[in-house]
């Protein structure tokens, strides 16, 4: 097995990405469950209850993020098998990052689900989004030195900024690590990435609330 750098082999490089991928895939269930509730009529019971649309949207997002966590944690526990050593503080640091990624991507799912009413259509759209998002997020290869067009896609992909901090925490994110992402020449620190993904989640949540409110 060749080393990519700093004594990190390919499997160790992939490991944080796999965690991110698992979390990302389960986070989309927030949207699925909304579409499902609509299809089976239960959404009407929720919409006519004296609770705000906002709490419905946020509740769905947090609910699915909570469900996404255990799947991520199970992968995380496999770390010793691939030669990644974990400390308690690493694990405690990763859990909120997984939750953040799941909530941010979940709110994108909710936004889509407020507009796409049928389960079939939702699944098609989800897959059309999820695979490019995963492929171009740095899960499978370091995002450094990609061809120009691909580089642009990776940088505008919100998932990139959700997976990068997980990798930074697991593999150590020194300022000169080759796995860091640079945007417009600026090297994204752990907190830079967190701010980007959190902002993305916030904007998606606001859009989802607006979309939910504005329709009948």
């Amino acid at each position, binding site marked *: 097995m060749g080393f990519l750098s700093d004594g990190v082999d390919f499997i160790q490089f992939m490991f944080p990405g796999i965690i991110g991928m698992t979390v990302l895939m389960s986070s989309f269930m927030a949207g699925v469950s909304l579409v499902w*509730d609509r*299809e*089976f*009529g*239960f*959404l*009407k*019971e*929720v*919409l*006519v*209850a*004296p*609770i*705000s649309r906002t709490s419905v949207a946020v509740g769905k997002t947090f609910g699915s993020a909570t469900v996404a966590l255990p799947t991520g944690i199970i992968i995380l526990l496999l770390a010793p098998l691939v030669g990644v050593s974990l400390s308690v503080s690493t694990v405690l640091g990763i859990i909120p990052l997984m939750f953040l990624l799941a909530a941010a991507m979940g709110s994108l799912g909710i936004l889509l689900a407020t507009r796409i009413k049928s*389960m079939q259509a939702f699944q098609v759209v989800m897959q059309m989004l999820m695979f490019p998002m995963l492929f171009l997020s740095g899960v499978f290869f370091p995002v450094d030195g990609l061809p120009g067009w691909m580089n642009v896609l990776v940088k505008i992909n919100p998932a990139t900024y959700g997976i990068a901090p997980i990798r930074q925490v697991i593999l150590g994110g020194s300022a000169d690590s080759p796995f860091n992402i640079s945007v417009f020449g600026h090297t994204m620190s752990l907190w830079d990435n967190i701010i980007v993904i959190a902002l993305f989640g916030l904007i998606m949540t606001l859009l989802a609330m607006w979309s939910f409110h504005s329709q*009948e």
Partner: protein
Amino acid sequence: MHNYAIKVENLAKDFGELHAVDGISFNVASGEIFGFLGPNGAGKTTTISVLCTLTKPTSGRAIINGYDVVRQQSKVRQSIGLVFQDSSLDERLTGLQNLRFHAMVYNVPSSVRDKRIEDMLNMVELWDKRNSEVSTYSGGMKRRLELARGLLHHPKVLFLDEPTLGLDPQTRNRIWEYIIELGKSEGTTIFLTTHYMDEAEKADRIAIIDSGKLVAMDNPINLKNMVGKDIISIKTEDDSKAIEEIKSRYAIEARNDTNNGLIFNVVNGEEFLPGFIKEFTTKILSVSLRRPSLDDVFLKITGREIREEGTKDGIRAMVHGRSRRMHH
């Protein structure tokens, strides 16, 4: 003016070019059972959606329990209960869990929550099935559970959209017993839609809606009086002689009906019959008196039968139910 539970003024709802609800006005008094009767596609469900804040009206106003359905949505929602035309239960939860969820989102105080859930489940006779997943319930059980759920937070107004659609006659009767009992004991105002005539007759007052417009509104007795005369059918030993005698005695044309013998109309059947039986000389084998039904009323007002559309809708509901299950 304050004791109206529902006030509707010139309410309209368009879907594009279609005027689904076309400027209707009515009031429902507190404690009244108000029936909305009309064929499939008349605008009943759309009216309920507007009244319960799920759909914004295109124009007009609706006030429920003193709250505006557009500007005071959450006040309206807290004070109403709903049973939708299509099931709105979470089928993956048990009956008990569905009611618990409802109690939570409607802020039923936790001190009374469990007791009330138990009472409701007993009322609709589902206590024994409380821990079964709703997906295993029959259609009638689901409807009863929805009724229990709609009542759990003691709403002042209960909306029922075709509460008995697609159910067998026995279950329909049972559900009607609950509804009438409720109106009496809790003083709950009930707004229900139906296209079953016999059900509409149980309401205190009926509004007939056709193509988005109210075409009649009154209590069932007055509505039937609009049609006028009572219908008498007799079987005799000699029909042609009887026709002659009815004509000469009362100046009424009787007609032959294959199933019922002779049929003729009189103004006040109950007072007419005793004298008729005494003085009629042709031998009578049987007599029956029928008041005009709401079917006759609907036919007279709109020139169409309501019935045929009813059966179609029933079948559609069944097909719909089946296709839902297939998604599982």
